[in-house]
């Protein structure tokens, strides 16, 4: 990594960090924190889906694991929330590795991988909805005890900075992946797995590392969600809404790019808020916009917003990698 890699990330992070000094209204800060949490989770999706080309439709499995591990550790065993954050991230990696081990070893790709991840997330949701340790359908309420040591802050801006720091760290991580041998091999697997294998890439090991990393980052976002909103239940933590959000953001922003997930999350939620402002109290209006934008993006802008910008700026050297191009049938 060079200064050229670091500077744009640093500049953006500093600019974003100044935002709470200008805007202090709590609904706006709430919106920003939520958006950053989604962006963070989406960055996790992007490592596996964007670089590795393995489209997961069930990243809720990791988000929910992060959220539940943090909450359960605090409530049942009184373990500190910061330690919970580390353990939740590790749990996300472990769940990612386990799901990956089962599905990649069976050779599931493309649509089949999407379906199996979706099913795993549903299994987790049903279990969390029924098991006593997760509080069943009533969910879990994390005790309000506003102390920095508990990962609870009485100023929303502090939480915003915390999430922003994680987002920036993952931006750096993603940039590193992009520049590393690991990233190059992942892209090779995405573009043509058989060819990559023929060149000596151990695709199973590679995909396992990608899904574990992806699961860890997304679990971290789930943990932060739980700590910010202090309440989770099975339909929030393991619900399909979050799987969809985490996949929409990178695809809209620019799949397989460093900034794509953040740009996508910002755009989607910005548009969603605008739609809500204009349309008033129509339920689901923001989601109608999300779905419409997704169809339009796939139809007209496969590289997402960043891809469009690049084309407009005339730097069409294919720097924005195109993801998901894979003729995929499982069971070979």
């Amino acid at each position, binding site marked *: 990594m060079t200064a050229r890699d670091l500077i744009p990330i640093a500049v953006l992070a500093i600019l974003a960090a100044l935002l709470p000094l200008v805007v202090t209204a709590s609904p706006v800060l709430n919106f920003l924190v939520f958006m950053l949490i989604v962006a963070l989770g989406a960055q996790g999706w992007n490592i596996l889906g964007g670089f590795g080309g393995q*489209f997961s*439709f069930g990243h809720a499995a990791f988000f929910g694991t992060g959220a539940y591990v943090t909450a359960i550790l605090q409530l049942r065993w009184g373990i500190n929330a910061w330690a919970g954050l580390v353990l939740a991230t590790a749990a996300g990696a472990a769940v990612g590795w386990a799901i990956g081990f*089962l*599905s990649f070893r*069976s*050779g*599931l790709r*493309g*649509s*089949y991988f*999407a*379906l*199996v991840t*979706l*099913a*795993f997330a*549903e*299994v987790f949701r*049903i*279990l969390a*909805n*029924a098991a006593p340790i997760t509080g*069943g*359908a009533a969910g879990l309420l994390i005790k309000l005890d506003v102390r920095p040591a508990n990962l609870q802050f009485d100023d929303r801006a502090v939480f915003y900075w915390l999430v922003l720091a994680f987002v920036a760290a993952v931006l750096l991580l993603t940039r590193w992946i992009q520049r590393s041998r690991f990233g190059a091999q992942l892209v090779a697997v995405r573009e043509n797995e058989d060819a990559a294998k023929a060149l000596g890439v151990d695709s199973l090991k590679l995909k396992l590392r990608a899904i574990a990393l992806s699961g860890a980052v997304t679990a971290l976002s789930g943990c932060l969600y739980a700590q910010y909103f202090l309440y989770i239940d099975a339909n929030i933590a393991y619900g*399909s809404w979050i799987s*969809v959000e985490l996949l929409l953001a990178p*695809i809209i922003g620019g799949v397989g790019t460093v900034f794509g997930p953040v740009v996508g999350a910002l755009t989607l939620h910005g548009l969603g808020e605008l739609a809500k402002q204009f349309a008033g109290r*129509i*339920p*689901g*209006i923001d*989601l*109608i916009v*999300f*779905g*419409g*934008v*997704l*169809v339009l993006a*796939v*139809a007209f802008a*496969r590289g997402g917003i960043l891809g469009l910008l690049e084309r407009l700026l005339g730097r069409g050297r294919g720097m924005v990698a195109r*993801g*998901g*191009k*894979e*003729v*995929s*049938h*499982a*069971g*070979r």
Partner: protein
Amino acid sequence: MYSPQIILEAALNGLMTGAVYALIALGLTLIYGVLHIINFAHGALLTCAMFAVWIAWAWLGMDPYLAILPLVPLMFALGYGLQRFVVGPASHGDDGNILLVTLGLSIVLENVLLALFQSDTRTLDTDYSFQVVALGPLLLSYPRLIGLGGAVVVTGLLWLVLNRTDTGKAIRAVAKEKLGANLVGIDVPHIYAVTFGLGCACLAVAAGLLMPTFYVNPRIGGAFVLVAFTVVVLGGMGSIPGALLGGLFIGVVESLCGLFLGDSLGQIGIFLIFIAVLLVRPTGLFGAKA
């Protein structure tokens, strides 16, 4: 312990629920078999059809079974149009794209319904909603028995269309060899759209058969679509008899799991089967090729 009679009754009930699952899966598997795409919007389209049945009953006073008749051509047209003008052009023939486009469609459809009808759950009641038929010591729900019959009839009809008509022949040709079909003068985009339309028409029947005993809200399709995926994967992607048998089997599994594990865990059996089949034998029990 449960008495054999309760278990038998649960199994039969499951069989009847499974028939409707089979109908939903039939459309999905047909679309997969020919277009080789996974239609994520299938659940949302089912919700549309269920709302249409409810509207026909609530606003026009139409019997839900009777509503199937006008709804079948309507849903066919909707499916035809969606594939021809949205899914086909937007996805540029790429597998991952189709998944995303249909996902986008399902989000839009679901939330348009939410905007129109709010999230309230709606039911309709008919004279026969709670009628039962006695079969020896067993009591079977009359509308669900009709559902079972309907599913078998529709499967038969679909099989006839595919095997005894020119359009059916063209559909099978496109499914086997797209390029070759194109070379002998088959309009492939048209056949794709017809297939998508047929898949949606199956949903119209399923909706009509479901509504007398079930309810509808904008999110209901999601509950069915995963089950339908399971059925399709279990029966073998693209296999019509597979969809029927898979649907019946899954219905029984769900019903028995519900009996032994309680309602909240009842569906877990379905997903575990789904995962197991995907991991062990992704071609399904009846699928010939990967």
